[in-house]
């Protein structure tokens, strides 16, 4: 059988606060993400979506559980080894403008990982231009600063930056939530095109609170509620026959 690109096993994060009971933000969740698959993760604010992502991307240490990326256990690694992980896994964040250094051009941001991996200045410049064009921008955007471009253009640049190292897993944490619907549609079209071109070389973990968007875009969906996965399956099946009370409420709330 094919090996999952990402395997999350019994992942748990407990926040402890003085004088208050422990709070399990993520409570023993397990799931697999197969190569080429697009997996949606939905749930309301405070359901633990972002904590889960922060643990997978190793920005937050889990209390318990295991994260396996492309066959390697990445749960406890640090330093040089951890840096290597980011060649396989890249993130696209919610607010595009804030995810770039305001004092550097978009080209600097996109090319940074290439330079760090030993590419020459000229090679990097050519590659940045190629990446920008792949993401529907022109090469001249490399010399612009984040505040000089629109939100949608900036998110395209953020996707170009994520793709620079050729990752196998792209994690989009509410990547379209801050954008207008028309721009959101364009970004989704771009992600769909990338999936077509990369085939099983690119998997996406798509965190979102818009169930209709997840239905359009994802192969499979996980519904989180109070730190647990309460439902999983094909988006159409989950939406037609929600088994969990929370999922039912979520679907009924859509206007």
């Amino acid at each position, binding site marked *: 059988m094919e090996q999952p690109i990402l395997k999350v096993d019994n992942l748990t994060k407990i926040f402890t606060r003085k004088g208050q009971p422990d709070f399990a933000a993520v409570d023993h969740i397990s799931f697999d993400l197969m190569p080429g698959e697009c997996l949606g993760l939905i749930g309301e604010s405070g359901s633990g979506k972002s904590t889960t992502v922060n643990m997978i991307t190793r920005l937050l240490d889990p209390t318990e559980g295991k994260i396996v990326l492309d066959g390697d256990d990445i749960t406890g690694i640090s330093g040089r080894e951890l840096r290597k992980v980011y060649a396989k896994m890249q993130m696209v964040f919610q607010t595009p403008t804030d995810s770039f250094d305001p004092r550097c051009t978009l080209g600097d941001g996109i090319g940074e990982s290439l330079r760090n991996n030993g590419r020459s200045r000229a090679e990097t410049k050519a590659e940045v231009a190629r990446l920008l064009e792949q993401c529907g921008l022109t090469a001249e955007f490399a010399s612009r600063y984040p505040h000089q471009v629109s939100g949608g253009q900036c998110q395209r640049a953020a996707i170009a930056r994520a793709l620079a190292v050729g990752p196998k897993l792209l994690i989009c944490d509410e990547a379209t939530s801050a954008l207008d*619907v028309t721009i959101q*549609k364009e970004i989704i079209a771009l992600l769909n095109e990338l999936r077509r071109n990369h085939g099983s070389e690119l998997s996406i973990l798509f965190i979102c*609170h818009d169930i209709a968007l997840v239905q359009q875009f994802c192969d499979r969906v996980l519904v989180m509620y109070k730190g647990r996965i309460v439902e999983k399956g094909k988006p159409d099946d989950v939406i037609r026959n929600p088994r969990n009370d929370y999922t039912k409420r979520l679907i009924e709330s*859509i206007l």
Partner: protein
Amino acid sequence: MAEILKYEHVDITYNGFKAVKDVSFTVSEGEILGIVGESGSGKSTLIKAAMGLLGPAGLVTRGDIWYKGKNLPDLSENEIRKLNGPELGMIFQSAGSSFCPIRTVGAQLYESMTEHEQISKAEFRARALELLRKIGFENGQRILDAYPFELSGGMQQRVGIAAAMLLNPSVLMADEPTSALDVSVQKQVVEEMLLVRKSFGTTIVLVTHNIGVIGAMADKVLVMKNGETVEYGETKQVLNNAKEEYTRTLMSAVPKLRRT
């Protein structure tokens, strides 16, 4: 029904930049008008102009905004203060942060009421509790004694609605009242605003980029792009049968849930 609010060829400028160009519409009593558009289309600016909240840089450079025979941009600061609250109410996008964090909800609501009418504390509490009950709070007493940060985002937003409703305004301006909320809470807030209209006959001007909310609430829709009116008409006609290309693009970009 009688017209209550009328925009006539309104231009609004921020430091020489025209944010709103030649917008005209009328709202009748008890009507809900939805204003949609992308970021930067000038939709919030439109209602801020009526409330006198444009700030030092913003100016209505042409046209009139009529409310009950008064041209709002021409009024003095004092007259605007008298109108804002009992006549024109406003609900902000993040109601939680429009409250003072170090005073209880009750104290702040009381202050806003005494600003406009003579009222005893006991009378205020009775009225506030009744209103809070009407908009779906089971334990209004607890809400009045709470600090804003002790309430969840959805509760804060509903308290924001209560704060605007307490003075029983004839027109309620709502600037993205549900955008910061989860869908389940969004539905509650939408239902409460509809209830407010049903019980008090309040006119509502609703600014949002969420077309779902417009579909659920508005009688008429104004679609804006780059400060100009793209389309203005009955909600059903605009949402299902748009005349303009831009409106159709906007509608087709909204992800729709396939339930069957």
